[in-house]
């Protein structure tokens, strides 16, 4: 049963991500996970510490219209982000207005929302565990 610990970790991801904050929904119903992730270069606007998913807002310039747009990116549950060491705090960390590069799976309805894939911070660090399940899957 060499795969049992791996399966246990995977199952834990399911439990931890889903049960702690309530019900899971199907990401494939909302995001185009079969297309390449889009890259968003902008500035940090705010984080929303809410359930069932924390949200990261970044301000991005729409190159076609020249308008600044608010992109709302879905992250994991806050509890899981904490466990993964999410490096964004209100004080002493990255602050609103700092440059952020994010990759995300775009929403299927064409809105400026997405499923967060990765965040690159001003100091060059990249955080790739912002979406539920990924940390456990990478183990």
């Amino acid at each position, binding site marked *: 049963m060499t795969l049992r610990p791996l399966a*246990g970790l995977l*199952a834990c991801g*399911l439990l931890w991500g889903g049960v702690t904050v309530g019900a*899971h929904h199907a990401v494939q119903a909302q995001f185009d996970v079969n297309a*390449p992730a889009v890259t968003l270069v902008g500035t940090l606007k705010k984080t929303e510490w809410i359930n*069932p998913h924390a949200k990261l807002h970044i301000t991005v310039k729409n190159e076609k219209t020249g308008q600044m747009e608010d992109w709302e990116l879905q992250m994991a549950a806050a509890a899981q982000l904490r466990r993964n060491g999410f490096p964004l705090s209100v004080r002493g*960390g990255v602050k609103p207005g700092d440059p952020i590069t994010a990759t995300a799976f775009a929403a299927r309805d064409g809105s400026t929302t997405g499923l967060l894939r990765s965040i690159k911070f001003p100091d060059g660090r990249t955080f790739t565990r912002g979406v539920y*399940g990924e940390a456990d899957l990478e183990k």
Partner: protein
Amino acid sequence: MQSRSRRWPYDLSVSLVLAGVLAMSALAGVDLAAQQSGGAAAAPTPRLPDGKPDFNGMWAGGRGGGAGFGAENPADNDNVVALLRARAPELDKSAPAGTDANYAHAIVNFERDSGLSQRSVRNRPMYKPEHWTEINELDKDGNALDPAFKCLPQGVPRMGPPNKIVHTPKEMIFLYGLRMTRVIPIDGRPIPPVAEWIGLWNGVSRGRWEGDELVIETVDFNDETWLGWPGWFHSIDMKVTERMRREGSTLRWQATVDDPMLLQPWVMNPRTLQLNANANAEIEEDLPCFEKDLQHMVTKERG
């Protein structure tokens, strides 16, 4: 830059980490019961001055969710393991690790395995035939209908055992995540007459002792909650009986659902909680639930 621990002030979420570790251990095939029999459960059970087992404390590893998964049921565990084992090679072969293609497979499989594993639990409520069609529809296309996904309370018994208990001689105060609290009289007062029932998310509960076992009976529910992820609804005539027993530093919780919609009472899998040994453990703020995703769903499919 500061160190991670200083930069991230919430690293003190000891209870969450402990709960995660316990869940991982249980699901990784560690026989929790065996551990308890040799350690925690063998410890003396503390008692209050009235002689009753002391339920006070933070309790980890109970997990919410009506399905309960199979952590303490080997047959259910095997189902989950079998599914995930089949998926693992697919992740490895699909694309180089870290690429978007690999990731796409991972996240979709994660969601779909979640749904499959939720459905694979063998211990299910057995509905009368007239409800089977609706149950199947909710299981398949109920993505936007799960009350918990809409930030409504999971309710009793779906939210499982409490994370913290304050035990007084006359009442039990149960603290959950999910911004939920129950205050349960254990002073012998009766359940209010049916004519006074109004239909509640957690119902009206009364506790009593049967020896060292706390028995909580709950009635007066609404019919807005589900018993579990697969769409298991219930009626306002549901009655839930929870049985809790402390042995050493463990707390056993088991709930049974009686409902006229069911062919027979649904005896949920028991769950064993561990006392958080950290005397300084704190409960963090429960974040508000704010549903923002339903408007962006383009299909009804579930995980």
